[in-house]
Protein backbone atom coordinates (compact mmCIF):
# COMPACT_ATOMS: atom_id res chain seq x y z
CA UNK A 1 0.00 0.00 0.00
CA UNK A 2 1.42 3.41 -0.91
CA UNK A 3 2.15 5.56 2.09
CA UNK A 4 2.01 9.29 2.60
CA UNK A 5 5.76 9.60 2.04
CA UNK A 6 5.22 8.35 -1.53
CA UNK A 7 3.01 11.32 -2.15
CA UNK A 8 4.42 14.07 0.01
CA UNK A 9 8.11 14.00 -0.80
CA UNK A 10 10.23 16.58 0.99
CA UNK A 11 10.76 18.65 -2.13
CA UNK A 12 7.02 18.75 -2.78
CA UNK A 13 6.33 20.04 0.70
CA UNK A 14 9.11 22.58 0.25
CA UNK A 15 7.55 23.95 -2.92
CA UNK A 16 4.18 23.98 -1.17
CA UNK A 17 5.46 25.94 1.79
CA UNK A 18 7.66 28.22 -0.30
CA UNK A 19 6.04 28.45 -3.70
CA UNK A 20 8.28 29.83 -6.44
CA UNK A 21 7.08 32.43 -8.91
CA UNK A 22 3.80 33.08 -7.15
CA UNK A 23 1.82 36.14 -8.09
CA UNK A 24 0.41 37.92 -11.07
CA UNK A 25 1.75 39.65 -14.16
CA UNK A 26 0.31 42.48 -16.12
CA UNK A 27 -1.61 41.40 -19.23
CA UNK A 28 -0.35 42.26 -21.77
CA UNK A 29 2.56 41.74 -22.12
CA UNK A 30 1.76 38.52 -20.21
CA UNK A 31 -0.96 36.12 -21.29
CA UNK A 32 -3.03 34.39 -18.66
CA UNK A 33 -5.03 31.19 -18.57
CA UNK A 34 -7.31 29.94 -15.81
CA UNK A 35 -7.87 26.32 -14.84
CA UNK A 36 -10.36 24.63 -12.53
CA UNK A 37 -10.42 21.26 -10.88
CA UNK A 38 -14.17 20.69 -10.70
CA UNK A 39 -13.68 17.87 -8.20
CA UNK A 40 -12.22 19.91 -5.41
CA UNK A 41 -12.73 23.51 -6.44
CA UNK A 42 -9.05 24.26 -6.93
CA UNK A 43 -8.41 27.24 -9.18
CA UNK A 44 -5.14 28.18 -10.77
CA UNK A 45 -4.04 31.06 -12.97
CA UNK A 46 -0.91 30.83 -15.05
CA UNK A 47 0.67 34.05 -16.34
CA UNK A 48 3.31 33.69 -19.03
CA UNK A 49 5.51 36.23 -20.82
CA UNK A 50 7.04 35.04 -24.07
CA UNK A 51 9.71 37.20 -25.64
CA UNK A 52 10.52 36.02 -29.13
CA UNK A 53 10.73 32.28 -28.55
CA UNK A 54 11.65 32.37 -24.92
CA UNK A 55 9.57 32.16 -21.79
CA UNK A 56 10.99 35.07 -19.86
CA UNK A 57 8.58 35.11 -16.96
CA UNK A 58 5.88 32.95 -15.44
CA UNK A 59 3.68 33.38 -12.37
CA UNK A 60 1.11 31.25 -10.60
CA UNK A 61 -2.02 32.59 -8.95
CA UNK A 62 -5.03 30.91 -7.40
CA UNK A 63 -5.52 28.36 -4.66
CA UNK A 64 -5.10 24.67 -4.33
CA UNK A 65 -3.81 21.70 -2.43
CA UNK A 66 -0.15 20.93 -1.80
CA UNK A 67 0.06 18.74 -4.87
CA UNK A 68 -1.42 21.23 -7.31
CA UNK A 69 0.49 24.14 -5.79
CA UNK A 70 3.85 22.42 -5.61
CA UNK A 71 3.47 20.90 -9.04
CA UNK A 72 2.75 24.33 -10.51
CA UNK A 73 5.64 25.85 -8.56
CA UNK A 74 8.07 23.19 -9.79
CA UNK A 75 6.74 23.67 -13.29
CA UNK A 76 7.63 27.36 -13.24
CA UNK A 77 11.26 26.67 -12.35
CA UNK A 78 11.41 23.96 -15.00
CA UNK A 79 10.16 26.08 -17.88
CA UNK A 80 11.29 29.64 -17.23
CA UNK A 81 14.13 30.61 -19.57
CA UNK A 82 13.26 27.80 -21.96
CA UNK A 83 11.92 28.21 -25.47
CA UNK A 84 8.27 27.47 -26.03
CA UNK A 85 9.17 24.25 -27.83
CA UNK A 86 11.45 23.11 -25.02
CA UNK A 87 8.73 23.90 -22.50
CA UNK A 88 6.27 21.86 -24.51
CA UNK A 89 8.68 18.93 -24.39
CA UNK A 90 8.80 19.13 -20.60
CA UNK A 91 5.06 19.38 -20.52
CA UNK A 92 4.73 16.28 -22.66
CA UNK A 93 7.16 14.30 -20.53
CA UNK A 94 5.45 15.35 -17.35
CA UNK A 95 2.00 14.43 -18.59
CA UNK A 96 3.32 11.11 -19.76
CA UNK A 97 4.66 10.44 -16.27
CA UNK A 98 1.24 11.30 -14.86
CA UNK A 99 -0.64 9.11 -17.31
CA UNK A 100 0.82 5.79 -16.19
CA UNK A 101 -2.29 4.97 -14.28
CA UNK A 102 -4.53 5.65 -17.22
CA UNK A 103 -2.42 3.27 -19.24
CA UNK A 104 -3.46 0.46 -16.97
CA UNK A 105 -0.64 0.04 -14.49
CA UNK A 106 -3.09 0.44 -11.65
CA UNK A 107 -2.76 2.12 -8.30
CA UNK A 108 -0.89 -0.75 -6.66
CA UNK A 109 1.92 -0.98 -9.19
CA UNK A 110 5.19 0.75 -8.52
CA UNK A 111 5.58 3.51 -11.08
CA UNK A 112 9.29 3.75 -10.29
CA UNK A 113 9.71 0.49 -12.17
CA UNK A 114 7.90 1.75 -15.21
CA UNK A 115 9.79 2.83 -18.24
CA UNK A 116 8.66 6.41 -18.14
CA UNK A 117 10.70 9.28 -19.46
CA UNK A 118 13.25 10.58 -17.02
CA UNK A 119 15.25 13.74 -17.20
CA UNK A 120 12.54 15.64 -15.41
CA UNK A 121 14.85 16.49 -12.53
CA UNK A 122 13.05 17.60 -9.38
CA UNK A 123 9.75 16.94 -11.09
CA UNK A 124 10.42 13.23 -10.69
CA UNK A 125 9.40 13.70 -7.06
CA UNK A 126 5.83 13.95 -8.30
CA UNK A 127 6.00 10.44 -9.74
CA UNK A 128 4.43 9.03 -6.56
CA UNK A 129 1.22 10.89 -7.31
CA UNK A 130 0.18 8.25 -9.81
CA UNK A 131 -0.25 5.84 -6.90
CA UNK A 132 -3.06 8.11 -5.74
CA UNK A 133 -5.22 8.31 -8.84
CA UNK A 134 -7.61 10.99 -7.62
CA UNK A 135 -4.66 13.30 -7.05
CA UNK A 136 -3.38 13.12 -10.63
CA UNK A 137 -5.77 15.87 -11.63
CA UNK A 138 -4.27 18.02 -8.88
CA UNK A 139 -0.75 17.48 -10.19
CA UNK A 140 -1.66 18.23 -13.79
CA UNK A 141 -3.90 21.25 -13.16
CA UNK A 142 -1.14 23.86 -13.44
CA UNK A 143 0.37 22.12 -16.45
CA UNK A 144 -2.86 21.93 -18.40
CA UNK A 145 -3.44 25.58 -17.62
CA UNK A 146 0.10 26.41 -18.77
CA UNK A 147 -0.69 24.53 -21.98
CA UNK A 148 -3.72 26.76 -22.49
CA UNK A 149 -1.62 29.85 -21.88
CA UNK A 150 0.87 28.72 -24.54
CA UNK A 151 -2.00 28.16 -26.95
CA UNK A 152 -3.02 31.71 -26.22
CA UNK A 153 0.48 32.87 -27.12
CA UNK A 154 0.26 30.99 -30.43
CA UNK A 155 -3.06 32.48 -31.41
CA UNK A 156 -4.15 35.39 -29.26
CA UNK A 157 -7.91 35.52 -28.78
Amino acid at each position, binding site marked *: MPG*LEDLYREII*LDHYRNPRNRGELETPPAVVAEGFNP*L*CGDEVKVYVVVDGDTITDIRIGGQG*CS*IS*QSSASMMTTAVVGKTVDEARDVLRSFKQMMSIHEHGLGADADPADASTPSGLGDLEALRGVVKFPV*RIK*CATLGWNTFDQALAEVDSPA
Partner: protein
Amino acid sequence: MSTATLDAAAVKADFPLLAREVHGTPIVYLDSGATSQKPRAVLDAMDRYYEEINANVHRGAYHIAERATTASEDARRSVARFIGATDEHEVVFTKNATEAVNLVAHAWGRSNLAEGDVVLVSLLEHHANIVPWHQLAAERGIEVRWIPTTDDGRLNLGALDHLLEGVRLVAVTAASNVTGDLPPVRRLADAAHSVGALCLVDASQYVPHRATDVADLGCDFLAFTGHKMCGPTGIGVLWGRRELLDAMPPFLGGGEMILDVRRDGFTPNEVPWRFEAGTPPIAEMIGLGAAVDYLEQLGMDAVAAHEVDLTAYALRTLGDRFDDDLVIHGPADTTDRGGTLSMCLGEIHAHDLSQVLDQHGVCVRAGHHCAKPLMRELGVTATARASLYLYNDESDVDALADALDEAARFFAF
Protein backbone atom coordinates in the same frame (compact mmCIF):
# COMPACT_ATOMS: atom_id res chain seq x y z
CA MET B 1 -41.01 5.47 20.23
CA SER B 2 -39.98 8.98 21.16
CA THR B 3 -38.13 7.92 24.29
CA ALA B 4 -36.25 5.15 22.51
CA THR B 5 -32.50 5.46 22.40
CA LEU B 6 -30.18 4.03 19.86
CA ASP B 7 -27.83 1.19 20.61
CA ALA B 8 -25.00 2.44 18.41
CA ALA B 9 -22.99 -0.78 18.65
CA ALA B 10 -25.97 -2.86 17.55
CA VAL B 11 -26.74 -0.44 14.74
CA LYS B 12 -23.14 -0.54 13.53
CA ALA B 13 -23.31 -4.32 13.43
CA ASP B 14 -26.24 -4.08 11.00
CA PHE B 15 -23.94 -2.55 8.36
CA PRO B 16 -21.60 -5.14 6.82
CA LEU B 17 -19.23 -2.61 5.28
CA LEU B 18 -18.49 -1.01 8.63
CA ALA B 19 -16.80 -4.23 9.74
CA ARG B 20 -14.05 -3.93 7.15
CA GLU B 21 -10.60 -2.46 7.44
CA VAL B 22 -8.77 -0.08 5.11
CA HIS B 23 -5.02 0.40 5.14
CA GLY B 24 -4.84 -2.06 8.01
CA THR B 25 -7.11 -0.13 10.37
CA PRO B 26 -10.85 -0.39 11.00
CA ILE B 27 -12.80 1.89 8.71
CA VAL B 28 -14.16 5.07 10.26
CA TYR B 29 -16.89 6.13 7.89
CA LEU B 30 -17.70 9.82 8.21
CA ASP B 31 -19.01 10.58 4.74
CA SER B 32 -22.68 9.75 5.04
CA GLY B 33 -23.48 13.20 3.70
CA ALA B 34 -22.19 11.92 0.36
CA THR B 35 -23.82 8.52 0.68
CA SER B 36 -24.76 6.35 3.62
CA GLN B 37 -23.78 2.75 4.15
CA LYS B 38 -26.48 0.12 3.70
CA PRO B 39 -27.81 -2.22 6.39
CA ARG B 40 -28.02 -5.96 5.82
CA ALA B 41 -31.83 -5.68 5.68
CA VAL B 42 -31.63 -3.52 2.55
CA LEU B 43 -29.06 -5.72 0.82
CA ASP B 44 -31.13 -8.81 1.62
CA ALA B 45 -34.37 -7.27 0.36
CA MET B 46 -32.75 -6.45 -2.96
CA ASP B 47 -31.15 -9.89 -3.26
CA ARG B 48 -34.46 -11.55 -2.45
CA TYR B 49 -36.15 -9.59 -5.20
CA TYR B 50 -33.63 -10.76 -7.78
CA GLU B 51 -33.49 -14.33 -6.50
CA GLU B 52 -37.20 -14.90 -5.98
CA ILE B 53 -39.49 -12.47 -7.79
CA ASN B 54 -37.51 -10.72 -10.53
CA ALA B 55 -40.02 -9.72 -13.22
CA ASN B 56 -41.11 -6.49 -14.83
CA VAL B 57 -43.82 -4.58 -13.03
CA HIS B 58 -47.30 -3.50 -14.11
CA ARG B 59 -47.17 -5.94 -17.01
CA GLY B 60 -47.29 -9.70 -16.50
CA ALA B 61 -50.28 -11.49 -15.00
CA TYR B 62 -48.14 -14.31 -13.64
CA HIS B 63 -47.23 -14.96 -10.05
CA ILE B 64 -43.77 -13.42 -9.77
CA ALA B 65 -44.75 -10.38 -11.85
CA GLU B 66 -47.59 -9.72 -9.48
CA ARG B 67 -45.29 -10.20 -6.52
CA ALA B 68 -42.75 -7.76 -7.99
CA THR B 69 -45.46 -5.20 -8.68
CA THR B 70 -46.84 -5.55 -5.17
CA ALA B 71 -43.40 -5.32 -3.56
CA SER B 72 -42.45 -2.17 -5.47
CA GLU B 73 -45.78 -0.51 -4.80
CA ASP B 74 -45.53 -1.51 -1.13
CA ALA B 75 -42.25 0.42 -1.10
CA ARG B 76 -44.11 3.48 -2.35
CA ARG B 77 -46.57 3.09 0.51
CA SER B 78 -43.72 2.76 3.02
CA VAL B 79 -42.08 5.91 1.74
CA ALA B 80 -45.37 7.80 1.83
CA ARG B 81 -45.93 6.74 5.43
CA PHE B 82 -42.34 7.67 6.32
CA ILE B 83 -42.81 11.28 5.26
CA GLY B 84 -46.38 11.63 6.50
CA ALA B 85 -47.98 11.69 3.05
CA THR B 86 -51.60 10.56 3.26
CA ASP B 87 -51.82 9.66 -0.43
CA GLU B 88 -49.19 7.30 -1.80
CA HIS B 89 -49.91 8.60 -5.30
CA GLU B 90 -48.05 11.71 -4.25
CA VAL B 91 -44.79 9.76 -4.10
CA VAL B 92 -42.99 9.82 -7.46
CA PHE B 93 -39.90 7.65 -7.77
CA THR B 94 -37.00 9.29 -9.57
CA LYS B 95 -33.36 8.42 -10.05
CA ASN B 96 -32.18 10.70 -7.23
CA ALA B 97 -32.87 14.09 -5.67
CA THR B 98 -31.32 15.84 -8.64
CA GLU B 99 -33.85 14.30 -10.99
CA ALA B 100 -36.64 15.15 -8.56
CA VAL B 101 -35.77 18.85 -8.67
CA ASN B 102 -35.37 18.72 -12.43
CA LEU B 103 -38.79 17.10 -12.68
CA VAL B 104 -40.33 20.11 -10.93
CA ALA B 105 -38.33 22.51 -13.10
CA HIS B 106 -39.46 20.79 -16.28
CA ALA B 107 -42.99 19.67 -15.57
CA TRP B 108 -44.13 22.46 -13.25
CA GLY B 109 -41.64 25.20 -14.13
CA ARG B 110 -42.04 25.09 -17.88
CA SER B 111 -45.83 25.25 -17.66
CA ASN B 112 -46.03 27.83 -14.92
CA LEU B 113 -43.09 30.21 -15.12
CA ALA B 114 -42.60 33.01 -17.60
CA GLU B 115 -40.10 35.78 -18.15
CA GLY B 116 -39.62 37.92 -15.09
CA ASP B 117 -40.98 35.35 -12.64
CA VAL B 118 -38.72 34.80 -9.67
CA VAL B 119 -37.46 31.57 -8.16
CA LEU B 120 -36.07 32.27 -4.71
CA VAL B 121 -33.28 29.93 -3.68
CA SER B 122 -30.77 30.23 -0.85
CA LEU B 123 -27.02 30.44 -0.69
CA LEU B 124 -27.05 27.14 1.19
CA GLU B 125 -28.26 25.21 -1.84
CA HIS B 126 -26.60 22.22 -3.41
CA HIS B 127 -26.02 22.62 -7.17
CA ALA B 128 -28.94 20.21 -7.67
CA ASN B 129 -31.27 22.97 -6.49
CA ILE B 130 -29.51 25.76 -8.37
CA VAL B 131 -28.59 24.64 -11.86
CA PRO B 132 -32.11 23.57 -12.95
CA TRP B 133 -33.25 27.12 -12.14
CA HIS B 134 -30.28 28.65 -13.95
CA GLN B 135 -31.26 26.54 -16.95
CA LEU B 136 -34.80 27.84 -16.75
CA ALA B 137 -33.44 31.36 -16.44
CA ALA B 138 -31.45 30.91 -19.63
CA GLU B 139 -34.41 29.38 -21.41
CA ARG B 140 -37.31 31.43 -20.07
CA GLY B 141 -35.80 34.56 -18.65
CA ILE B 142 -36.90 33.85 -15.10
CA GLU B 143 -34.91 35.45 -12.31
CA VAL B 144 -32.99 33.38 -9.75
CA ARG B 145 -32.83 35.31 -6.50
CA TRP B 146 -30.80 34.44 -3.42
CA ILE B 147 -31.54 34.34 0.29
CA PRO B 148 -28.25 35.34 1.94
CA THR B 149 -26.51 33.58 4.81
CA THR B 150 -25.12 34.64 8.16
CA ASP B 151 -21.50 34.31 9.21
CA ASP B 152 -22.23 31.04 10.97
CA GLY B 153 -23.73 29.46 7.88
CA ARG B 154 -27.43 29.88 8.56
CA LEU B 155 -30.03 31.59 6.42
CA ASN B 156 -30.33 35.31 6.95
CA LEU B 157 -34.06 35.92 6.74
CA GLY B 158 -33.93 39.55 7.79
CA ALA B 159 -34.98 40.82 4.37
CA LEU B 160 -37.30 37.93 3.51
CA ASP B 161 -40.40 40.05 2.94
CA HIS B 162 -38.51 42.19 0.49
CA LEU B 163 -36.98 39.18 -1.27
CA LEU B 164 -40.40 37.62 -1.84
CA GLU B 165 -41.54 40.24 -4.31
CA GLY B 166 -42.47 38.61 -7.62
CA VAL B 167 -41.57 35.15 -6.35
CA ARG B 168 -43.45 32.16 -7.79
CA LEU B 169 -41.38 29.42 -6.19
CA VAL B 170 -39.28 29.27 -3.04
CA ALA B 171 -36.78 26.43 -3.52
CA VAL B 172 -34.79 25.81 -0.35
CA THR B 173 -32.86 23.15 1.44
CA ALA B 174 -34.12 21.65 4.69
CA ALA B 175 -30.56 20.86 5.79
CA SER B 176 -27.31 22.25 4.45
CA ASN B 177 -24.85 19.65 3.25
CA VAL B 178 -22.01 22.03 4.15
CA THR B 179 -22.85 23.92 7.35
CA GLY B 180 -25.41 21.52 8.81
CA ASP B 181 -27.92 24.34 9.26
CA LEU B 182 -31.55 23.27 9.43
CA PRO B 183 -33.45 26.26 8.03
CA PRO B 184 -36.98 27.03 9.27
CA VAL B 185 -38.81 25.32 6.44
CA ARG B 186 -42.27 25.91 7.85
CA ARG B 187 -41.67 29.63 8.04
CA LEU B 188 -40.34 29.72 4.48
CA ALA B 189 -43.25 27.68 3.15
CA ASP B 190 -45.76 29.93 4.90
CA ALA B 191 -43.95 33.00 3.56
CA ALA B 192 -44.08 31.55 0.04
CA HIS B 193 -47.79 30.89 0.33
CA SER B 194 -48.43 34.37 1.68
CA VAL B 195 -47.37 35.78 -1.71
CA GLY B 196 -49.09 33.04 -3.72
CA ALA B 197 -45.87 31.16 -4.42
CA LEU B 198 -45.13 27.47 -4.01
CA CYS B 199 -42.39 25.93 -1.89
CA LEU B 200 -40.03 23.16 -2.99
CA VAL B 201 -37.85 21.68 -0.28
CA ASP B 202 -34.61 19.84 -0.96
CA ALA B 203 -34.71 17.38 1.91
CA SER B 204 -31.80 15.22 0.77
CA GLN B 205 -29.92 15.86 4.01
CA TYR B 206 -33.03 16.04 6.18
CA VAL B 207 -35.18 12.98 5.57
CA PRO B 208 -32.31 10.61 6.48
CA HIS B 209 -31.79 12.33 9.82
CA ARG B 210 -35.05 13.75 11.16
CA ALA B 211 -38.63 12.56 11.46
CA THR B 212 -40.30 14.12 8.43
CA ASP B 213 -43.92 15.09 8.01
CA VAL B 214 -44.82 16.96 4.85
CA ALA B 215 -47.91 18.42 6.49
CA ASP B 216 -45.78 19.88 9.31
CA LEU B 217 -43.22 21.23 6.88
CA GLY B 218 -46.04 22.86 4.93
CA CYS B 219 -44.25 22.60 1.60
CA ASP B 220 -45.67 21.75 -1.82
CA PHE B 221 -42.83 19.61 -3.17
CA LEU B 222 -40.22 17.59 -1.29
CA ALA B 223 -37.17 16.11 -3.02
CA PHE B 224 -34.83 13.56 -1.48
CA THR B 225 -32.52 10.76 -2.43
CA GLY B 226 -32.47 7.11 -1.39
CA HIS B 227 -28.75 6.49 -1.09
CA LYS B 228 -28.24 8.96 1.76
CA MET B 229 -30.90 7.23 3.91
CA CYS B 230 -29.59 3.68 4.01
CA GLY B 231 -31.13 2.86 0.65
CA PRO B 232 -29.47 2.01 -2.65
CA THR B 233 -28.25 4.40 -5.32
CA GLY B 234 -30.43 4.97 -8.36
CA ILE B 235 -33.60 5.83 -6.48
CA GLY B 236 -34.93 9.16 -5.30
CA VAL B 237 -38.26 10.67 -4.48
CA LEU B 238 -40.32 13.65 -5.46
CA TRP B 239 -43.28 14.12 -3.19
CA GLY B 240 -45.79 16.68 -4.41
CA ARG B 241 -49.28 17.75 -3.41
CA ARG B 242 -51.72 15.67 -5.44
CA GLU B 243 -53.50 18.53 -7.20
CA LEU B 244 -50.18 19.99 -8.32
CA LEU B 245 -48.93 16.66 -9.66
CA ASP B 246 -52.29 16.01 -11.36
CA ALA B 247 -51.96 19.30 -13.23
CA MET B 248 -48.38 18.73 -14.34
CA PRO B 249 -47.57 17.35 -17.80
CA PRO B 250 -45.21 14.37 -18.08
CA PHE B 251 -41.47 14.96 -18.01
CA LEU B 252 -40.07 11.96 -19.93
CA GLY B 253 -42.14 10.08 -22.52
CA GLY B 254 -42.28 6.33 -23.15
CA GLY B 255 -43.75 3.22 -21.63
CA GLU B 256 -45.42 3.11 -18.22
CA MET B 257 -46.29 6.81 -18.29
CA ILE B 258 -49.20 6.43 -20.72
CA LEU B 259 -52.82 5.30 -20.59
CA ASP B 260 -53.16 5.17 -24.34
CA VAL B 261 -51.04 5.77 -27.40
CA ARG B 262 -52.56 6.39 -30.82
CA ARG B 263 -51.15 7.34 -34.18
CA ASP B 264 -52.01 10.94 -33.49
CA GLY B 265 -50.96 11.24 -29.86
CA PHE B 266 -51.10 9.80 -26.36
CA THR B 267 -52.99 10.06 -23.11
CA PRO B 268 -50.76 10.28 -20.06
CA ASN B 269 -51.15 7.89 -17.15
CA GLU B 270 -52.28 8.96 -13.71
CA VAL B 271 -49.82 10.16 -11.14
CA PRO B 272 -47.35 9.00 -9.99
CA TRP B 273 -46.74 6.67 -12.96
CA ARG B 274 -47.12 9.59 -15.39
CA PHE B 275 -43.70 10.72 -14.20
CA GLU B 276 -42.08 7.28 -14.19
CA ALA B 277 -41.43 6.58 -17.85
CA GLY B 278 -39.90 3.24 -18.75
CA THR B 279 -39.10 0.25 -16.56
CA PRO B 280 -38.52 1.62 -13.08
CA PRO B 281 -35.59 0.70 -10.81
CA ILE B 282 -37.57 -2.11 -9.20
CA ALA B 283 -34.88 -3.54 -6.93
CA GLU B 284 -34.00 -0.02 -5.82
CA MET B 285 -37.61 0.81 -4.97
CA ILE B 286 -37.75 -2.35 -2.87
CA GLY B 287 -34.39 -1.49 -1.33
CA LEU B 288 -35.58 1.98 -0.41
CA GLY B 289 -38.73 0.49 1.09
CA ALA B 290 -36.54 -1.77 3.22
CA ALA B 291 -34.39 1.20 4.25
CA VAL B 292 -37.44 3.12 5.38
CA ASP B 293 -38.70 0.11 7.32
CA TYR B 294 -35.28 -0.20 8.95
CA LEU B 295 -35.23 3.46 9.98
CA GLU B 296 -38.80 3.28 11.27
CA GLN B 297 -37.94 0.28 13.36
CA LEU B 298 -35.14 2.20 15.05
CA GLY B 299 -37.37 5.25 15.30
CA MET B 300 -36.44 8.52 13.65
CA ASP B 301 -36.71 10.35 16.96
CA ALA B 302 -34.07 8.03 18.38
CA VAL B 303 -31.91 8.50 15.29
CA ALA B 304 -32.18 12.27 15.58
CA ALA B 305 -31.46 12.26 19.32
CA HIS B 306 -28.40 10.09 18.80
CA GLU B 307 -27.09 12.41 16.10
CA VAL B 308 -27.68 15.54 18.15
CA ASP B 309 -25.79 14.03 21.09
CA LEU B 310 -22.95 12.89 18.88
CA THR B 311 -22.75 16.26 17.11
CA ALA B 312 -22.52 17.98 20.48
CA TYR B 313 -19.75 15.58 21.47
CA ALA B 314 -17.91 16.23 18.21
CA LEU B 315 -18.16 20.03 18.47
CA ARG B 316 -16.96 19.87 22.07
CA THR B 317 -14.13 17.39 21.44
CA LEU B 318 -12.80 19.10 18.34
CA GLY B 319 -13.13 22.52 19.96
CA ASP B 320 -11.22 21.36 23.05
CA ARG B 321 -8.45 19.65 21.12
CA PHE B 322 -7.84 22.12 18.32
CA ASP B 323 -9.24 25.39 19.55
CA ASP B 324 -8.84 28.10 16.90
CA ASP B 325 -6.63 25.95 14.67
CA LEU B 326 -9.71 24.12 13.48
CA VAL B 327 -12.48 26.14 11.87
CA ILE B 328 -15.82 24.36 11.61
CA HIS B 329 -18.02 26.28 9.21
CA GLY B 330 -21.54 26.32 10.54
CA PRO B 331 -23.51 26.93 13.72
CA ALA B 332 -21.45 26.53 16.88
CA ASP B 333 -24.02 24.48 18.78
CA THR B 334 -26.59 21.82 17.98
CA THR B 335 -29.63 24.09 17.87
CA ASP B 336 -31.27 23.47 14.50
CA ARG B 337 -28.07 21.88 13.31
CA GLY B 338 -27.32 18.50 11.79
CA GLY B 339 -24.17 16.44 12.14
CA THR B 340 -22.28 17.93 9.21
CA LEU B 341 -18.87 19.30 10.13
CA SER B 342 -17.10 21.24 7.40
CA MET B 343 -13.57 21.66 8.62
CA CYS B 344 -10.50 23.72 7.78
CA LEU B 345 -7.41 22.82 9.83
CA GLY B 346 -4.82 25.56 9.88
CA GLU B 347 -3.46 26.17 6.42
CA ILE B 348 -3.83 22.54 5.37
CA HIS B 349 -5.80 22.18 2.18
CA ALA B 350 -8.87 19.97 2.49
CA HIS B 351 -7.54 17.59 -0.12
CA ASP B 352 -4.32 17.07 1.80
CA LEU B 353 -6.20 16.76 5.05
CA SER B 354 -8.49 14.05 3.75
CA GLN B 355 -5.49 12.22 2.30
CA VAL B 356 -3.87 12.00 5.72
CA LEU B 357 -7.16 11.05 7.37
CA ASP B 358 -7.54 8.26 4.82
CA GLN B 359 -4.26 6.74 5.99
CA HIS B 360 -5.94 6.33 9.36
CA GLY B 361 -9.03 4.77 7.85
CA VAL B 362 -11.05 7.95 8.33
CA CYS B 363 -13.30 8.70 5.34
CA VAL B 364 -14.27 12.34 4.91
CA ARG B 365 -15.19 14.33 1.84
CA ALA B 366 -12.84 17.04 0.58
CA GLY B 367 -13.97 19.67 -1.86
CA HIS B 368 -16.71 22.18 -2.54
CA HIS B 369 -19.54 19.74 -1.84
CA CYS B 370 -21.46 20.87 -4.92
CA ALA B 371 -22.28 24.14 -3.18
CA LYS B 372 -19.96 26.64 -4.82
CA PRO B 373 -22.04 29.78 -4.22
CA LEU B 374 -21.97 28.96 -0.51
CA MET B 375 -18.24 28.18 -0.56
CA ARG B 376 -17.58 31.58 -2.13
CA GLU B 377 -19.66 33.16 0.61
CA LEU B 378 -17.66 31.31 3.26
CA GLY B 379 -14.47 32.45 1.53
CA VAL B 380 -13.04 28.96 1.02
CA THR B 381 -12.54 26.83 -2.07
CA ALA B 382 -12.69 23.54 -0.23
CA THR B 383 -13.40 22.06 3.18
CA ALA B 384 -12.95 18.60 4.64
CA ARG B 385 -16.41 17.48 5.63
CA ALA B 386 -17.16 14.87 8.25
CA SER B 387 -20.82 13.90 8.36
CA LEU B 388 -22.29 11.82 11.15
CA TYR B 389 -25.04 9.26 10.90
CA LEU B 390 -26.88 6.73 13.00
CA TYR B 391 -24.08 4.16 13.02
CA ASN B 392 -21.37 6.57 14.16
CA ASP B 393 -20.36 6.78 17.79
CA GLU B 394 -17.91 8.64 20.01
CA SER B 395 -15.07 6.32 19.01
CA ASP B 396 -15.44 7.54 15.41
CA VAL B 397 -15.20 11.15 16.54
CA ASP B 398 -12.14 10.32 18.64
CA ALA B 399 -10.54 8.60 15.64
CA LEU B 400 -11.22 11.70 13.57
CA ALA B 401 -9.62 13.92 16.21
CA ASP B 402 -6.56 11.65 16.44
CA ALA B 403 -6.17 11.66 12.67
CA LEU B 404 -6.50 15.45 12.57
CA ASP B 405 -3.69 15.59 15.09
CA GLU B 406 -1.55 13.45 12.83
CA ALA B 407 -2.30 15.74 9.90
CA ALA B 408 -1.33 18.81 11.90
CA ARG B 409 1.92 17.09 12.82
CA PHE B 410 2.60 15.94 9.27
CA PHE B 411 2.12 19.33 7.71
CA ALA B 412 3.48 21.09 10.80
CA PHE B 413 1.63 24.32 10.30
